[in-house]
Each structure stands twice: as C-alpha cells, then as structure tokens.
C-alpha cells in the first residue's frame, strides 16, 4: 500500500513541489551478443525499444544503463551515441538494462501544467456552478487525488487504488504547507518550495498515512 508521489501546483499552474516515493518498477538486465535482436530508436532524448519485446523487456522501455554505467539521454555514460555503440560488433557482448524511464523534471513540469488546465476545464464543464474541480482520477494502477484550496493551490497525491485516508492526507499536507513553507519568511509565495522542514514533515505524514491506510483496507 503505497503513496507514489506528491505534487504541489501553484495558482498559475506551475509545479512548485514534487516528491516521489515509489517502489522501483520492473527492470530487466540482459547480456546481448551481436547482432542485437531488439530494434531501438530515439524518442524524446532517450533510446527506447520499438520492436522485439521479450523476457521482460517491453516496447517503450528505455535503455537505463550499459555494462553497469548509467546512460545520459541518447549517449552512453562515456558520451558515445548509444545506437552507434550498439552497431559496432567490437563492443559485444554487452549488458544492457531496460526499464520504464523515469520522468524528467521538465516532463513533470509540463504534466503539472497540463493537469492544471484540465482541472480548469473540468470545473467549467460542470453542469452546476461552483464545482470543486477534478477530485480524483482513477486508473487500474493508481488513483490521483487532487485538492484545490480556496487560494488556488493544488495538492495532488498519486497513490495505490486501495489506499484509504487520502483526503485526510491532503488536508494534512495543506497544514504542513501552511506551516513550514508559508511561515518561513524566506520562502516567496508561488515559488518552488525548497524548505527542509517541509520535506521532513511531508515524509512523516506520508508514512503515517500509509500505515493508517493499511489498517483501513485490512479490516
């Protein structure tokens, strides 16, 4: 029972805080010999599998590391282009780790702004005036809970679908924000939150919520 991540979005739709708490996803590391039977391609500054799904390596998985060295975008750790490197028979046998790519901070910023826009559309589509906006987005793997304060700040929590008590958690995160971020005179409003006390207390609140959620679902 896990809370995957927490996002805080300001009035203008910009992401001001982001915390990831998830368990690492499935990754597969395999040793390959020339020629590589997977088809790889460039996508969004990453190298991903486009054909040849097998053994836990799925289409869409990104190359995470080669021979134990983490890759940097399209290049290996040493700066060589990955596709060039893998076309050269002299570099084989090579051990490559594939997995679902983590979101970069730019991608998270874009997704947060997109959610902010969807939220606005959601409130306006409402048949009744004064809708609260999107409160929950449910998929089979996670549930996204959103709480917008009267001042326009949105707290978004991604959690396991069976996790309970997220509403209390959202209110608690609001309290922690009003304490450790706002009462810090050196923190400017609407700017990214870089307060250690906020981080610490947020992690504490997530732990409490995860434990409480376990009791709730077990009974």
């Amino acid at each position, binding site marked *: 029972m896990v809370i995957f991540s927490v996002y805080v979005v300001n*009035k203008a739709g910009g992401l001001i805080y982001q915390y990831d708490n998830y368990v690492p996803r499935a990754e597969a590391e395999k040793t390959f010999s020339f020629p590589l039977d997977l088809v790889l391609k460039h996508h969004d500054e990453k190298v991903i599998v486009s054909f040849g799904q097998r053994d836990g390596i799925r289409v869409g998985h990104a190359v995470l590391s080669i021979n134990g060295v983490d890759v940097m975008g399209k290049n290996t750790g040493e700066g060589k282009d990955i596709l060039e490197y893998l076309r050269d028979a002299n570099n084989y046998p090579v051990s490559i780790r594939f997995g679902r790519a983590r979101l970069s901070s730019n991608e998270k910023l874009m997704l947060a702004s997109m959610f902010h826009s969807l*939220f*606005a559309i959601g409130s306006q589509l409402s048949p009744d005036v004064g809708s609260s906006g999107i409160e929950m987005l449910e998929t089979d793997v996670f549930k996204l809970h959103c709480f917008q*304060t009267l001042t326009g700040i949105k707290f978004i929590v991604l959690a396991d679908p069976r996790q309970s008590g997220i509403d209390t958690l959202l209110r608690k995160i*609001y309290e922690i*924000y009003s*304490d450790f971020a*706002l*009462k810090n005179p050196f923190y400017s409003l609407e700017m990214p939150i870089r307060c250690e006390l906020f981080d610490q*207390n947020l992690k504490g609140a997530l732990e409490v919520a995860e434990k409480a959620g376990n009791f709730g679902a077990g009974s």
Partner: protein
Amino acid sequence: MSRQSNRTTDSKKMNSELFTLTYGALVTQLCKDYENDEEVNKQLDKMGYNIGVRLIEDFLARSSIGRCQDFRETADVIAKVAFKMYLGVTPSVTNWSPAGDEFSLILENNPLVDFVELPDNHNTLIYSNLLCGVLRGALEMVKSTLF
C-alpha cells in the same frame, strides 16, 4: 477535523504582553525611521499585507471553512472565526452601508494596543494598521472565482 499529534504549536501559549511589546517596538522604530505618520501607516499596511497572504492559508487549513456565499457571511467569518482564532477577541460587525458593501469591525479590546496611548504629535498615525493590511492580504488571496 482530525488534528495529528505533531501540531503542538497551537497549544503553546505566548505571553500577550510580549506580543504587545513587540508590536509597540515595531511601530516606534518605524516612526523613528520614517518620521512621517502617513509613511508609517503605509509600511504597516504593507507588512500586514505580507502577513495576510500567508496567514490565510493557515486559517483555511485549520478551520476548513468553505467559500463564503455572500459578503455578510464573510464579515461573520472574519469576526467570529478568524479574529477569535488569532487574537482571541471577537469584534462586533456593525455600521452596514445601505448597499451592503461596507461594514465596520469594532474591537472592544485589541491586544495590540494594551497599555498604549497615542501622543499628540502622532494624531494621524493608525496604530493598528497592520490588522488592516492582514485583512487586505488575506481577502485578496481568496477573491478569485475563476474555478
């Protein structure tokens, strides 16, 4: 509303005299620095504004009050909930204008001005102008009705 156990700060009591003295020191220092009552009033308002924009979130997080439906409800919430929560006093809401868009908050006992007497040479000084700024800042943060 469920309050978790690590919210100890609201049970810490502070000596109200220290608070009055702190505010008094602030105002007198401003008077010395600016030497002009109008300027001091402006500075107090600015400071109050900065406090208000942060205080509103604390107020909303702790009181879980929803959006007020009209101005009268706003006046009631300010007087009965907000002032009570932060200063421990409940001002009275009076003097409504005929159009219903202006009212007065009368503070019977204002903790900021305990023991304070304004001298004659500061008769345009609004001593508690910080509170006006706080109200201005707080209300400005919740006025948008876009969503």
